[in-house]
Each structure stands twice: as C-alpha cells, then as structure tokens.
C-alpha cells in the first residue's frame, strides 16, 4: 500500500539554461513538482524527499561540494508542507518534549504537588510540614483534597496562630498562617517549683495539689504544687496549676564597701527583688574593711495566677 503523502523538499537549481537540468532529472526518473523560474538562471522546484540524494549525486550541493565543478548547482531550501513542521519539530525537540510533558502533567497529573508555599508567616513551617505530611500532602505527591480542615485544626492549636488556611493553587499548596500581633500569655503546664530557699508564709492554690504547707521550709527547685487533682478512686486528673506562694527568705553576706549604704546597695542588687517582693528587715554591721549585711525579705511566686 502506498502512503498517500510523501514529504517534499524544495531545491533551487542554478546555471545557464536551467531547463536543461530538468531534462536530466527527468532522465534519472526524478519527478519534479511546482517548478517556477525565479531568475533567468534559477528554477525553484520541489522533489520527493527520497529523491534528494539522487539530485545531489547528479548536481553538487553548493554548500558542501564547492570543489566539484558542475554547470548546475543545487541549493536546498528546506522542506515543504508537513515536512517543514517535522523538520522544525526535530530542531526544537527539547522544547517539544517539554511542551508535551507540560500538557501531560496538566491533563493527567493535575493534583500533583510540586511545592508548598507559605503566606503570612513561615515561623511555623516545620509544624505545617508535619501536619501536611500526616495527611499525605508533600512535594511530588498527589494532593489529598478534603484534608485541609484537618491540617488547619492542627495548626490552629499552636499558641499564637489566629488564622490558618490550606489551599491548592495549580501544582503548589498555599499555607496561610496569621499570628496574633499581641503576645499571648503562655500557660505553664508543669509542676510549680520553688525559685527561692526559705519558709513558706502564705500559700494560695486554686488548681493543683500542694506538696508543702505554710510554715514548711523549702529549698530552691523543690516542688510546691503538683499539676493534678487526686480523685476519690485514687486516680489523677491532670490540670494546669493556678497558685501563688509567699516565701520568706534571708540573705547574709560580707561585702567590701566604703560605707554601709554602699554595702546594702550591693546586697540589694544581689537578691534581685521584683515589685511585689518586700524587704522585712535589714541589718548592716561593719566588720573590719567589710560590712556584714543581713536582709530578710519575702518573695511571691506565682504560676498562671
């Protein structure tokens, strides 16, 4: 069966009386199509692509066989019709493949995720990546539609996150996280530990289980309140502590100073009192070149109070 279309090549033959060149092609059995005389010594014509080699065997190509003498020279002018596009496609094979790949991606791999972008803030990017991975959304995987709310719920649990949205834009997943412009008070969920050494003089525990009572002596780091309630059945219910403890502390040190006031000032700086703390008793005694300073003071320690 003969293929109905045969690709054609356009050639330009040049020489004196170029019509004679056509006669030689006829004798060689080469069909000539669309012959047109463009100049007195030039004929533009088409031949079947398979006959190209025969033509160049008869007449030399001016581009490649300059040394060979012939009354007529032939120049290739490119493919005709569909063959022109095939040749162009061959020259731009990479571009063509890229286009085809892009088309295939757009048609069959539309839900493919190539990247995850953040809008707003990316300080919680690690948490967002983890939350997305848990529902199966990661780069170079298929997008799991309908899991956005799950991811948002996880991200909204993070302190400071006020708004969160997850949506797909083409091959990218857009995670928008907006944080509160005001700092949020963090809730301490651990046991309350004493920050000072001294004697407890007041204790208020609204939530949690106290391990010390008023009058007890505590050392720095000792647990004052545990973050749970004990039930009647002997179990424990974990809670966030709300408590305030007032501890009476004593400071005593020998400080090198020129005056008693200077020695007291140095001692005052050492004990780092806050606004709520108060000094109960002070005593400064000169001891040679130094001063012995004694300060009794009370501090207030709070958790979530």
């Amino acid at each position: 069966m003969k293929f109905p279309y045969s690709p054609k090549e356009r050639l330009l033959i040049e020489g004196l009386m170029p019509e004679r060149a056509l006669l030689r092609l006829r004798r060689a059995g080469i069909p000539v199509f669309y012959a047109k005389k463009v100049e007195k010594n030039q004929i533009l014509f088409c031949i079947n692509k398979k006959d190209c080699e025969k033509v160049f065997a008869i007449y030399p190509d001016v581009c490649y066989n300059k040394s060979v003498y012939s009354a007529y020279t032939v120049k290739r002018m490119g493919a005709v019709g569909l063959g022109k596009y095939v040749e162009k496609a061959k020259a731009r094979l990479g571009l063509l493949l890229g286009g085809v790949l892009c088309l295939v991606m757009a048609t069959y791999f539309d839900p493919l995720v190539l990247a995850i972008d953040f809008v707003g803030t990316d300080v919680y990017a690690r948490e967002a990546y983890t939350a997305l991975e848990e529902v199966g959304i990661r780069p170079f995987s298929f997008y799991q539609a309908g899991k956005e709310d799950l991811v948002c719920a996880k991200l909204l649990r993070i302190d400071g996150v006020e708004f969160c949205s997850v949506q797909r834009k083409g091959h990218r997943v857009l995670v928008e996280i907006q944080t509160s412009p005001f700092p949020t008070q963090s809730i301490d969920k651990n046991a309350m530990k004493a920050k000072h050494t001294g004697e407890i003089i007041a204790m208020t525990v609204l939530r949690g289980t106290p391990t010390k009572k008023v009058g007890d002596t505590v050392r720095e780091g000792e647990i004052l309140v545990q973050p749970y309630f004990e039930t009647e059945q002997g179990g424990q219910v974990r809670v966030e502590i709300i408590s305030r403890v007032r501890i009476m502390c004593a400071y005593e040190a020998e400080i090198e100073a020129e005056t008693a006031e200077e020695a007291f000032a140095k001692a005052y700086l050492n004990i780092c009192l806050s606004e709520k703390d108060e000094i109960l008793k002070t005593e400064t005694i000169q001891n040679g070149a130094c001063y012995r300073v004694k300060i009794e003071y009370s501090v207030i320690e709070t958790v979530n109070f």
Partner: protein
Amino acid sequence: MRLYDEIFKNADGAAFTRCTVVPGGGGYFEGVKAVGDFSSERIVVCFPKTTVAAEGKNLSIRKYYDGDLQIDGNIHVLRVENPSSEEGK
C-alpha cells in the same frame, strides 16, 4: 480513445504526443521529451516530432515526470513551432 486515434492516424508516429488544455486553467502534456524555454509567460514543450509553445500568464510547472507535464496558470495560446524541423531526427 477512438477520438485520439482518429486525430493521430495520419500524424506519422506522433500518437504518443497529447496536449490537453483547460480554458482559463492549465494544461496537461503527454509524451514530453524536454522543456525548452521556461518563464512565467511562455513554456516551450518539446515532443519527439514537434515543439509546442504554451503562452499565457503565471505559468509554472506543477508536475514533470516520465514524459508527463502539468502546467499551472492561464494558457492563452498554444503555438506549434517548427513542426518539420524535428522530422528525421
């Protein structure tokens, strides 16, 4: 065809030479030996026994293969030139 047989019976071996011209169109020539002069106004077609010049406008060769020649364009005149000069060759 019988018509061609009638026409060429006294043509002395020119039976293989045939010309078909479409008014206002191109023409088809069989038994072509060579193409002589060739321009957009005139194409000289050489047959074994005679030479025919097709004159017109926008003439071009559409197909030329194995003694067949198809001419595109408007052929106004088909002139038989030196019919006796080819005789005896």
